[in-house]
């Protein structure tokens, strides 16, 4: 019917970025399972997948009760040794039985939630991503955000991290729904920290779609965080040197991480490209980065002038 997921993204709670080998240890959530690491164009480490059993109501726009039973697939990722993610998704399918089956049935279908009784895909999709969606606090129905948040907590609580992050920044959540059909993509900003994505892709669902959503979530978080840091710097409202000092964390920790669509499979790149045209993620990112660099350059000039003045005197 459809696939729905939620990605939570945040700053890894460590003073500096962590090395590839530390990434492997931090993400080793299950003994015996390996952490997958890719090195180009940016170090990206992905934990083994873990399952959470669920038997609960699914969110619907019509508020009709739909019961789903199965397992949620979750994993954690660290990008550039700096950005941490918790990500969960479920493939929602119709159950062939009209009652709950033994757990062995569901365990044989990892990441699948079977719907008991009637349900419309559109109703579920709207319920999950619409305005009345289960926010961070909603409790009664399937809350993938709560699962993803907990997985992100697992990473952040790792004893290998010193928890002395260079700046404070909120996590963001991206709630997404993917269906098969005529290609389209819709990315929506809700509150300061909540985003939704509706994706219709040709052909059947593959885990590459999850990679795309996680990649988008990473870059949306980077953009959101850079905007926050630039806002905090109060450019024009305070002295140049002070503004530059407040921009420093962005230069030290964020600005080199922008690698859009780095891990997106070829057949899905048109979706990224369409988001690059509108709203234009990279355009906004470049303009912000330029702004930060211009501030630094201006401040350097001012310092040089001051030094020259002092020398002449």
């Amino acid at each position: 019917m459809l696939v729905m997921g939620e990605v939570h993204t945040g700053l890894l709670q460590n003073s500096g970025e962590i090395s590839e080998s530390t990434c492997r240890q931090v993400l080793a959530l299950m003994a015996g399972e390996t952490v997958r690491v890719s090195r180009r164009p940016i170090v990206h480490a992905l934990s083994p997948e873990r399952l959470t059993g669920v038997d609960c109501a699914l969110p619907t726009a019509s508020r009709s009760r739909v019961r789903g039973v199965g397992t949620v697939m979750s994993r954690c990722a660290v990008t550039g040794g700096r950005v941490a993610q918790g990500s969960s998704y479920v493939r929602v399918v119709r159950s062939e039985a009209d009652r709950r089956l033994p757990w062995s049935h569901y365990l044989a279908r990892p990441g699948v939630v079977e719907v008991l009784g009637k349900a419309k895909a559109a109703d579920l999709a709207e319920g999950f991503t619409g305005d009345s969606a289960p926010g961070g606090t909603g409790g009664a129905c399937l809350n993938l955000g709560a699962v993803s948040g907990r997985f992100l907590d697992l990473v952040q609580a790792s004893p290998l991290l010193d928890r002395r992050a260079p700046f404070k920044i909120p996590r963001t959540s991206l709630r997404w729904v993917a269906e098969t059909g005529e290609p389209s993509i819709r990315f929506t900003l809700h509150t300061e920290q909540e985003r939704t994505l509706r994706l219709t892709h040709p052909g059947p669902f593959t885990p590459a779609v999850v990679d795309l959503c996680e990649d988008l979530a990473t870059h949306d978080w980077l953009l959101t965080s850079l905007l926050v840091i630039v806002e905090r710097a109060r450019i024009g409202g305070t002295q140049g040197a002070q503004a530059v000092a407040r921009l420093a964390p962005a230069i030290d920790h964020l600005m080199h991480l922008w690698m859009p669509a780095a891990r997106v499979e070829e057949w899905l790149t048109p979706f990224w490209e369409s988001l690059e045209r509108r709203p234009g993620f990279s355009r906004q990112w470049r303009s912000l980065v330029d702004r930060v660099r211009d501030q630094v350059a201006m401040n350097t000039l001012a310092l040089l002038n001051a030094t020259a003045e002092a020398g002449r005197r």
Partner: protein
Amino acid sequence: MLIFAISDKGGTGRSVTGTNIAYRHALQGNDVCYLDFDFGSPTAGAIFSVSAVARGTRENGLHHYLRGECPLPRRVDVWTESDREGLRARPPGAGRLVLLPGSEGGGELSALTDEVVGRCVQLLGRLDEEFDLCVVDVSAGRSFTAELVLAATVRMPAIPFRWLVFHRWTRQHIIAADGLVTGADGLLDVGTRFGHDPEDLRDRIRFVRTAVLEPDAAELVGLRDEQRAWLSACDSELRELAGRHGVGRTAMLGKIPLDPVLQWREQLITDEDVLASKIANAETAAAFEDLAKKIVDDSAWEGL
């Protein structure tokens, strides 16, 4: 940084001082979060003038969250949701100011289970990721709430935290404040039982005197000489008593002068209250401002 605000007895002005510290710290450009853990009477909403949660919230309050009834507690953005005109716009340069209200009619925690401590650890850990300062209003006296945060902080050794003990400047309050820290089942006693190092914990505790009437205060000008002499004698006696009980100057982080406004209504003291309507004293606002700086100033927290 986590700041736990506790008091020896009720009515010491713990909540009103804690909220004002949070407010001033946000004005100083930091992202601040205020958690109303005073489950018996969660009234922080009223102090921030958010009428919707004036006595706590009916859904998704901190109490519901700790009991496992909701995945995350509700957040109230004070800059957008306050009913007070002077608070409803975020001043330029100010950080975020977020209130996590308690549950209406929640009642005190009745037991301390591992799940409750785990949820507390999860919440404080997440808030520490995004806020420069989290002020946690722990209820008055010895309570499960105080034990809860003592147990939670043991599990988060890397997250810095400090305790503020609020007390009034009277004989009973000085003795009680000392007892709350060093007495049987006091903070040090319970903290050590949960695994804190007592010396380290002692260094993280400071006292704040509230509703202090200085012998040379302007309010005392109309008093008779005999009354002033008596007050002065009382004050020096109290200072001597405080010194003996470890509540003296060295362990004190700050003092809040007696302000008529706070006697009549618990509220945030804005600069407008001081400068425009002139209902509050400039000294009170300055004391809050000073405390808001000192709570994160390491030199004020060097070992005793």
